[in-house]
């Protein structure tokens, strides 16, 4: 979901940390941020699918974003949070180490992701945003979920 771009081309993002790296997401895709609760593991799922939790009656799959980005498995701590995002018509929880802030950036400052010869980077990083001596990777959500198993018949 794209943010409504105003005349000044400002983009509202939510930034978060995974390990030593900073990432951000379009805030329009975020429905809520909640604390970590233990998930019920799903059989026959990729390792980055932590399982499912109960989000007020809905069954919410939890993706370990660190594992999804190939940075190793998250060890949940008190500060770990789940960012609940819309991906298409589905609601998905992303497990991250901590949420940093909500910020506005000028769209013009977003730089294309340089090729670093890494598939996960190419797949999941839409662009990079330099910010106060740091760098945020702008996450592309569309391919975060595993490919749906299409039912035969």
């Amino acid at each position: 979901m794209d943010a409504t771009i105003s005349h000044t081309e400002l983009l509202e993002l939510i930034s978060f940390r995974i390990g030593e790296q900073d990432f951000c997401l379009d805030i329009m895709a975020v429905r809520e941020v909640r604390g970590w609760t233990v998930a019920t593991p799903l059989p026959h799922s990729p390792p980055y699918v932590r399982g499912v939790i109960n989000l007020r009656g809905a069954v919410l799959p939890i993706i370990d974003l660190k594992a999804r980005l190939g940075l190793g498995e998250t060890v949940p701590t008190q500060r770990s949070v789940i960012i609940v995002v819309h991906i298409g018509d589905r609601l998905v929880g992303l497990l991250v180490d901590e949420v940093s802030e909500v910020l506005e950036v000028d769209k013009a400052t977003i730089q294309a992701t340089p090729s670093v010869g890494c598939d996960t980077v190419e797949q999941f990083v839409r662009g990079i945003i330099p910010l106060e001596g740091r760098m945020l990777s702008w996450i592309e959500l569309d391919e975060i979920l595993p490919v749906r198993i299409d039912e035969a018949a």
Partner: protein
Amino acid sequence: MDSFEAIKQTYFQECDELLADLEQNLLMLEAGEGDGDTINAVFRAVHSVKGGAGAFGFEALVAFAHIFETTLDDMRSGKLDPEQDVIKIMLRASDVLVDHLQAAKGQGVVDEERAATMSRELEALVGGGSNEETAPLSGESGGDEWGFKPLMFEVDAPAPAAGLTLVMRPTATMYAKGHDAVLFLRELERIAHAEIELDASALPSLDALDPEASYLTWTVRWPADVDEKAIRDVFDFVGDDCPIELKRDAPAPPHQPAVDVAAMLANIRDAAGPPVVTEEEHEEKVASPAAPGGKIESKSGAAAATIRVDLERVDRMIDLVGELVINQAMLAQRVAESETGRSSSIAMGLDELEQLTREIQDSVMAIRAQPVKSVFQRMPRLVREIAGATGKQVRLVTEGENTEVDKTVIERLSDPITHMLRNAIDHGLETPEERSASGKSPEGVVRLAALHRSGRIVIEVSDDGKGINRPRVREIAVNKGLIQPDANLSDDEIDNLIFLPGFSTASAVSNISGRGVGMDVVKRSIQGLGGRISIASVPGKGSTFTLSLPLTLAVLDGMVISAGEQTLVAPLTAIVETLRPKPQDIRPIGPNAALLAVRGAHVPLIDVGVALGLRDTPIDATAGVVLLVEGEGGARAGVVADEIQGQRQVVIKSLEANYQRVGGIAAATILGDGRVALILDVDAIIASQRDRTEAKPIALAS
């Protein structure tokens, strides 16, 4: 949705009901149960459909409904006997009317040829096609009273064609007498598909235009040979008011735009502005979408008071009640764990709350329950079509139409029933000749019944045909490698071979059943809903398909079990019994498999934790519990779990809504502690035992 669109939707809803009633009444007439009131009701239904269609400008629908209505009018006035053959035509006409309505909704297209044939059949019943005089259409009539502006048509170049060409020059007198050129064109189009051209070259500019004069000439060309008399008949009663020239093999006039009649009608209508109607007519038309309902209600004024509620509201309420049940369970669990214990007044209050929530849940589910009638009603048409295509004579008998079942299940019933009926007629019933030869009535009977049995809905489709040819079924199964040639199978087991993937009994792939969708697919989709299907057959007497489904797909009675650290729910319907096995009943077989002896039979033991990849090594079955489960088709297995926590009704939550299907898991639910528990797909677990190599343990993270 604007208000016009809203009225239109209401009209469609009402049409669906009217057409269902129409078919119902026709079936009654066919069975000889109807009387004058029934005929009147049939007439009113078609009339109401037509009335509304006129208001919304569904021309094709109006035209067809009109012919239908004319025929029905004859029946109403006693000119036409409601004998079986006539009613059969009317039933097929009602099918075509449904097609037209679907097309008007923008869902599907009308088979023009079929509709045209149908119109002719109906007209033949009245004895002539000259019913234009009573034409109800005032939409375009006397369009020249409004004054035309020149029309621009976007057209393809006309294909030069030999055949029959008609030039029609309506005079002002004809229009003055209330005739409408459009109706002639439509009638001509009905005789055979024609190319119609409008010559508007005589049309003066607006200031010179005489609004009551006639300036338009049409050329109608049929590429193939058509009956000249039929064409002349169309103009029979206008005589000199509309001179026509009929020429054979006339060359196509060059550079004349050719348009199809529908596009032309649309263009004329657009250009002519609002339909020319008198104030009275106008009111009647606007009011008509609401009128049909009123008429029907007055007929059955004693019926229970009902309200129409948006389904979304009901669904939302069911969701909320589901949450309430979960919350109540959570609360109960917390109280039980707390120091106040079970004896306190809080606990008593909670018990009452539990009762109440259960009652609320039942009542809310009852709101969404619907009789299976809505599905059954679609079947007579299907049966007619299949019977027509296979050349068999079939009578459909339905029973238990008022059996209620949750809406979520209703929606899923249609496909399997359709398939079972197809099978029964195509494969089950013999041809009339074969039937007569074996001393049966040439007309085969297919029975479709619904009933409640032990908390499930059972649908039975039975035919009085030849039954399953067991030697043939066996032979096919052997040829296709589905069973061993020396397999020892009971009759019942042979019958159920038809549900195996890759099995099809039709020696020639037929148009009806052989659509690449076998009974195995039907079976799988039913199993996906927690249902079962089986077949029983008596050679020479017929077969019965039995399909059972849970009454709702919203809640499930389950047994809560634990495996490793996980809590799982097994559907109670799949569990035959639970037991703690004795060591001597467990018989190891092969390197790492074991069988359990249960009353003489041996069933494979499946550790649920291993099957789901929750752990690598199975637990000792004697230390845990075994759920003896039965999958579809009767395959049994012993599912080993650590312990049983209890039985409870759980609210089914879809995993697919936010994620996707997961192997071995049917759905999810939320337990009293607020955590998600997975509901086992017993069949998939039994199947996983067979191809164990595919089940790889997964790395768990929690």
